[in-house]
């Protein structure tokens, strides 16, 4: 084997070893910093976290069917659920267009002593389904609806 070939093999193995080392360290870093990488907590995840009172956090889930109650002119109350647990949210302000029952939603705000979430900001979450309105109607009509709502 000539020297050029040996050198090439050495460089390739250095890159390979660096790849493994960085993969492992990357995995550890990402696992350790999961709490700061997730953008919102689901109501179930929120139960596992202590010390949430008076801290600005974000929660996310689906707006429960028939849970939206309007109080006064622009104050509303609704329930965010994730299938297992739920949380009551109070909000005063402008809502995004996609906000509706059954829709994914993210609320930023604080949890009060009574376990009610006081939201300052509401973001609508969009799902990964794209289709024309007629198709959506047809799916609902024949009972093949798999998406939200």
């Amino acid at each position, binding site marked *: 084997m000539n020297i050029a070939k040996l050198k*090439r093999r050495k*460089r*390739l193995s250095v*890159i390979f070893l*660096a*790849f493994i080392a*960085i*993969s492992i360290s*990357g995995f550890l870093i*990402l696992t350790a910093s*999961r709490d700061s*990488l*997730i*953008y*919102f*907590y*689901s109501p179930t995840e929120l139960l596992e976290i202590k010390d949430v009172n008076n801290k600005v956090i974000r929660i*996310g889930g689906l707006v429960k069917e028939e849970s939206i109650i309007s109080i006064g002119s622009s104050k509303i109350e609704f329930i965010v659920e994730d299938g297992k647990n739920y949380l009551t949210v109070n909000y005063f302000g402008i*809502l*995004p*267009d*996609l*906000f509706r029952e059954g829709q994914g939603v*993210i609320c930023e705000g604080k949890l009060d002593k009574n376990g009610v979430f006081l939201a300052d*900001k*509401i*973001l*609508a*979450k*969009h*799902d*990964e*389904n*794209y*289709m*024309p*309105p*007629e*198709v*959506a*109607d047809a799916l609902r009509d024949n009972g093949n609806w798999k998406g939200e709502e």
Partner: protein
Amino acid sequence: MKNIFNFLANPSRFRIFAKNVYPFSLIGMFIFIFIGLWFSLYNSPPDYQQGETVRIMYVHVPAAWMAMMVYLSMTIMSIFSLVWRHPLADILSKCSAPIGAMFTLIALVTGSIWGKPTWGTWWVWDARLTSVFILFLIYMGHIALVRAFEDEYKGARAGAILTLFGAFNLPIIKFSVDWWNTLHQPASVIKLDGPSIHIDMMVPLVLMAFGFLFFYFSFLLINVQTELNHRKLKKLFIKKLN
């Protein structure tokens, strides 16, 4: 196959190849983007939730795909550059970076414009948006680093190492929406259980993706020719000085 590869690996032969292939790539780009735009803007349905806003996706998604595709090709070039010390790999990588940066910027800006009416915000620091922003910074860093050295060879080496380090951002971008709770929705097209996007919307998306791919080829071929001409001029100039 290996013969074709060896044949093109010679920079001056690649220059002739680039010159000949460029017009075809440009024609491909125009055809796909024109037909793609026609489908995107006129001949496709609105979405059942987003309405007409969905049309932003036909630019946003292909741009985001290309941002990652260009980086992936730069990563492969960097391995060739570091292991086999290939001058053409350096040039291709150097010429790809500005195009990739532009695709990333388009994805970020169109995503922001889509986010305002859909989510209700221009920007959030969730894992997907942040990792794509980091990709943009890596591209800008690469562009600056490669050009910061007097010696092209050193610049290319530094750029290749940066590219390999930065490649760990690619799986993070792709899987961020599955690993962590993000505001950005999960993948619709490239996923295990098949696309969750209607065929009428898939057609313009795929056409635009091919248009963007040819856009990358076309601009890469121009950039490579410019770079090779520039190097040739520099050599002539140095020879004349001596």
